[in-house]
């Protein structure tokens, strides 16, 4: 099933991806954000705060935004 996946880390990614039935937010993070830790991210599904075990459904909009994003001068 397709969801809209948005990753605001670095160069970023925003696009539709295929995921399998029964994928949770936590599992999606593990698959898509390799090497990253979920506690360092704001996680939103359909722009709402959710629990890690929430099951994703067709058409969901999932966003991972780093809590710390360094600005510059």
């Amino acid at each position, binding site marked *: 099933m397709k969801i809209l996946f948005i990753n605001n880390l670095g160069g*970023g990614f925003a696009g539709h991806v295929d995921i399998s039935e029964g994928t949770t937010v936590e599992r999606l993070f593990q698959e898509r954000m390799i090497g990253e830790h979920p506690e360092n991210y704001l996680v939103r599904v359909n*722009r709402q705060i959710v629990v890690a075990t929430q099951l994703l459904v067709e058409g969901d909009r999932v966003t991972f935004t780093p809590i*710390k994003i360094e*600005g510059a001068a």
Partner: protein
Amino acid sequence: MNPNELELRCAARELRDQLVRKARRQSLPMFPPGWKAIERLARQYQMAIDRGWHRAARNVALLLVGHLDYLRPRMDELNQSAQRLANMQFRTVHSIYEELTDLAIEFDEFRWDRKTEELIVTTAPITLEEIPLGSFEIRLCPDHPSGEPPYRIVAVEPNPAASNSSIVHPHVDDGVLCEGDGHEAVRRALKDGRLFDFFTVVRQILCTHHAGSAYVSLDEWAAMPCRDCGDLVLESDEQVCEACGKTVCGGCSRCCQCCDQGFCSGCVQTCPECDQTICSSCMETCDRCGQEICPVCRVGSLCEACKSENPQPGESVNAPVATQ
């Protein structure tokens, strides 16, 4: 206070109108020069063929090939622009309304300023490394004039750097946020029209201190520039000129040899006779010649030179003068 449902719907409608206006202003690029030459060359070729001028026809055909080679990539570009305009889709008012509703939940304050046509989100108060910077407004103008940044940062209750009042955040100068690692995420969110993501990313940049690349780092936030050398002086090392009140660093502070107070270089002088540093308040003048002189070298009311020319009664011109 966040807007009610009616205000949100009005804001969504006005925002959509703004986005459509901006999109419609994108026009097709100009037809490339040389386009009309194709028609002229085609006519010339036909004329040459009709008159049996086969060599001339061949030359015109070669010119035609050159022009077409020049035009081909430019026509491809024109084609892509036309396709983009033909496929342009606009968000519905309802989808914008839903996004504004979520913004109103995520942020402390959110409003649509109809006068400036800006979407304004206010962050919660931000404290970085124990320095309270206050809340910030992130003011986005989707239909911003070309050449200007699409958004600006405004401190609600500014606590700027002591050395520069236009720096209200380590990464904000004169309302412009230097996005650093967040630049691509901000750019993509704006390009895609993902307002919620845009405001979220900007807020996270404001909530992060990158000491290695700040206009003024937080450990120098309260530092004032030395009046004499210009270096930033930390609060713990700060000295204040007793005369003018300006900040002076330890290296530039001058001590008056009379009153033992600290001064900047502009508020002290050097006694011409003993070369000691004397502040303007302690410096005296010779009653005869007006020369500025320290109290120690001013014997009676005269400087040494005047005193030696005009000895007091009972003294000779050559009598030794008591010195410090």
